[in-house]
């Protein structure tokens, strides 16, 4: 996980988690922005600047400058995700792609079309990862579009490092009385 909390190596890293690990990714963007410019691609409208500002304040007192070093782009369709990545120059800035697959799970987009677009995205993510670290987060598809799980697998196969975070279940509270069966 150290590679994720402060990625330094130029490679494509991926993590899957509930809510696309947005809290972790926002913290990571704050951490990276404290030391230099960072590019954030938001594929699922998850970039909430308030937690980022709070996290930045923990790392540096220069809030405005630090927030100004975050280059944020939002995509609302999978076509926009592909176009954004294609237009992104490989200039050595670390890139964070939050909830990259959210738009790809749209049921109005056929699976073959999603796969075609994702292949293009993977190509560009690899291109960007040659000069700087790239961290991609995604959530697993909902039960309604479970066939799109192949997209996660494709991204996972392309990534140089892969983490899967799981939600912790609440511990069972012991009772003084014997439970009825």
């Amino acid at each position, binding site marked *: 996980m150290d590679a994720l909390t402060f990625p330094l190596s130029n490679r494509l890293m991926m993590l899957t988690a509930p809510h696309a690990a947005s809290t972790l990714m926002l913290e990571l963007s704050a951490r990276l922005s404290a030391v230099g410019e960072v590019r954030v691609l938001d594929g699922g*409208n998850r970039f*909430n*600047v*308030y937690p980022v*500002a*709070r996290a930045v*304040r923990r790392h540096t007192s220069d809030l405005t400058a630090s*927030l100004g070093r975050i280059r944020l782009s*939002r995509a609302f369709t999978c076509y926009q995700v592909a176009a954004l990545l294609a237009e992104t120059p490989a200039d050595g800035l670390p890139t964070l792609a939050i909830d990259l697959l959210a738009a790809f799970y749209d049921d109005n987009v056929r699976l073959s079309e999603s796969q075609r677009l994702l292949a293009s995205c993977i190509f560009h993510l690899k291109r960007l990862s040659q000069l700087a670290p790239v961290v991609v987060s995604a959530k697993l598809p909902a039960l309604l579009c479970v066939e799109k799980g192949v997209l996660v697998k494709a991204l996972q196969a392309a990534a140089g490092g892969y983490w899967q975070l799981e939600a912790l279940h609440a511990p069972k509270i012991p009772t003084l009385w014997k439970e009825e069966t």
Partner: protein
Amino acid sequence: MGRTLPSITQAFIQEQAAFSRFRRALRRGDQLALDDLFASARQHLSAAAYAAHALPMETFLLSMLLEQHKEILRLRQQMAELIGSLDA
């Protein structure tokens, strides 16, 4: 396309919820005083929205201070009037 930033009211509710454990640990009288503070900050939500500060809690705290200072000014004025009436 959805909203890209929570509204100031949502941010206020989230900040208030973040202090719920702190509130639970307070005495009843202190809980009511804390509720009053948040209520006073709520009066200035439109100004806080206009300020668009990256850390909205700072604006809320300033709103609380503002209401406190208004209260102090009001009490000072009442005291001056009372002293004036006693002198007369």
